């Protein structure tokens, strides 16, 4: 086949062109355009615009709403990633078997991820609204009602809870895949040497999970930096804009407030953050990996 591909340059074009066109036209060029427009003062519909270069970025530095959204985004991404890593590894260790009950548990924990974030958002919004089901359940065990969505801290916590609920099973699958690469003999040898389950986990399983930990942490962080749907549906950015995230601000500025160029500017910030996180954390954790090994 190597032979036939080389003989037919026309075939190469036919094989790659459709996908490449769609990707370049709808992903690559738009990224460049986002960067380009972030250097202008375009409102998105006027016939002309001027270059203001870094003016939008300077505006962003002084923009309290943006700074708060940035902080909220990092808070959600970090706490969701930490909780999911604990839940995912925990579930994977408990469910690293092949019997029927174990598989049923896996299927149950995994199920939420097939729902649209919009759907799970509405589900939790309904449960956690002030005179909703959550407070009714709390009331039945004698706990005073909590204003989950009316208080900024509780609202953020609720967003993190939906995130963890929906993604824990997926994280579990990521770590199950990693656990299955660890030879069973290692655990058995540790058990023979008299190590209990916790010591085996700490000294055998965990170090061997380090590479997976690197990849999965980056994956989750990058994924949650773009958190948007839960915010739209669960809190609507409220109370008083306290739970707006970066991706939420991008759409808000660019589409709803007609500040097109400024929306593009925040989008560039989001993209740069994701790129930095991917590079930095990948580097950091792979160093530690080497030390543990």
């Amino acid at each position: 086949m190597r032979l036939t591909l080389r003989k037919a340059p026309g075939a190469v074009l036919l094989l790659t062109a459709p996908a490449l066109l769609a990707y370049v036209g709808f992903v690559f060029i738009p990224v460049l355009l986002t960067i380009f427009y972030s250097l202008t003062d375009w409102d998105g519909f006027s016939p002309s615009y001027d270059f203001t270069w870094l003016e939008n970025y300077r505006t962003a530095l002084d923009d309290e709403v943006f700074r708060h959204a940035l902080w909220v985004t990092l808070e959600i991404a970090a706490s969701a990633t930490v909780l999911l890593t604990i839940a995912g590894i925990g579930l994977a260790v408990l469910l690293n078997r092949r019997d029927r009950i174990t598989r049923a548990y896996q299927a149950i924990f995994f199920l939420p991820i097939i729902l649209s974030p919009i759907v799970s958002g509405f589900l939790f919004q309904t449960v956690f609204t002030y005179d909703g089901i959550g407070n009714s359940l709390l009331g039945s065990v004698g706990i005073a009602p909590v204003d989950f969505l009316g208080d900024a801290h509780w609202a953020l916590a609720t967003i993190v809870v939906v995130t963890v609920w929906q993604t824990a099973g997926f994280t579990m699958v990521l770590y199950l895949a990693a656990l299955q690469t660890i030879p069973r003999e290692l655990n058995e040898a540790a058990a023979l040497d008299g190590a209990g389950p916790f010591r085996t986990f700490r000294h055998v399983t965990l170090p061997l999970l380090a590479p997976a930990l690197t990849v999965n942490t980056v994956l989750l962080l990058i994924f949650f930096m773009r958190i948007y749907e839960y915010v739209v549906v669960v809190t609507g950015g409220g109370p008083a804009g306290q739970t707006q995230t970066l991706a939420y601000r991008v759409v808000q500025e660019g589409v709803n407030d007609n500040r097109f160029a400024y929306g593009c500017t925040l989008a560039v910030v989001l993209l740069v953050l994701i790129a930095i996180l991917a590079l930095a954390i990948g580097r950091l954790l792979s160093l530690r990996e080497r030390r543990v090994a």
Partner: protein
Amino acid sequence: MRRWGTFARHAVLLSAGLLFTLPLYIALIGAFKPTDQIVGSPLRPSPLSLDAIRKALDQPTFDIAAAYRTSILITVTAVALLLIVSSMIAYWIGRAPGRWPRRLELFLLLGLMVPPQVILLPVLHVLDWLGLLFTYPGLIVYDVGVYIPLAAFILSRFVAAIPPELEEAAGVDGAGPLRVFFRISLPLLRPALITLAVLLTIFIWNDFVNPLILLGSGRGETVTTGIYRSIGTYSTDYSSVFANILLVSAPMIVLYLLMQRRVIGAFAAGAVKG
């Protein structure tokens, strides 16, 4: 010691399992109960009725049947197109000699980092320029572009696993590369294509922000943008909310019940993208 460990394992799993199922249980029975019964006794599965479902199927603000048609049209077309074009490019990446395939793959992988919100604003203008703004074809071709990196990445691994001898034999028999691809390689990729189709179907059916912005308001609604626009008006009518949730998610839940292991496998395959 061992028996205690088994007990602890089951205790943890059972309580975690119940906690995770609780929201789903509330939504499921909530779709069949009147609202006052939902808040009053959220966990009791009675009295059940089909009123909320019937009401959800016939609501003035959200035509679920139309939303289903739109979502099915977009999902099926986009997934079909993606399977074709991504398997072609994946084939070249997985097979062609030299450095270019690897470079192309890296170029595509960059796209995995890009959140939709980063590109949506300019995409509005790209689609406008193509005359496809606020149309189904516009959203579909955009979906193709956005999911190419993931699809090509998953498939190229499978292409690389096909023994090249099969194709070489056909090549020696005088078949051109496209013929070899469609007659020999594509059928061999079938399991991978099914896995990918499952994954993309779930992603595109559940997609929210892209149809919300790229279809605009009033130009047809998918199930997700439809439920979003309608629920604002219903938000204290919990049984309506739950009925809508159930109706919107039903196809994906059925898909999951039918192909559970494959769905889980599909997400696992998709995750390797890091």
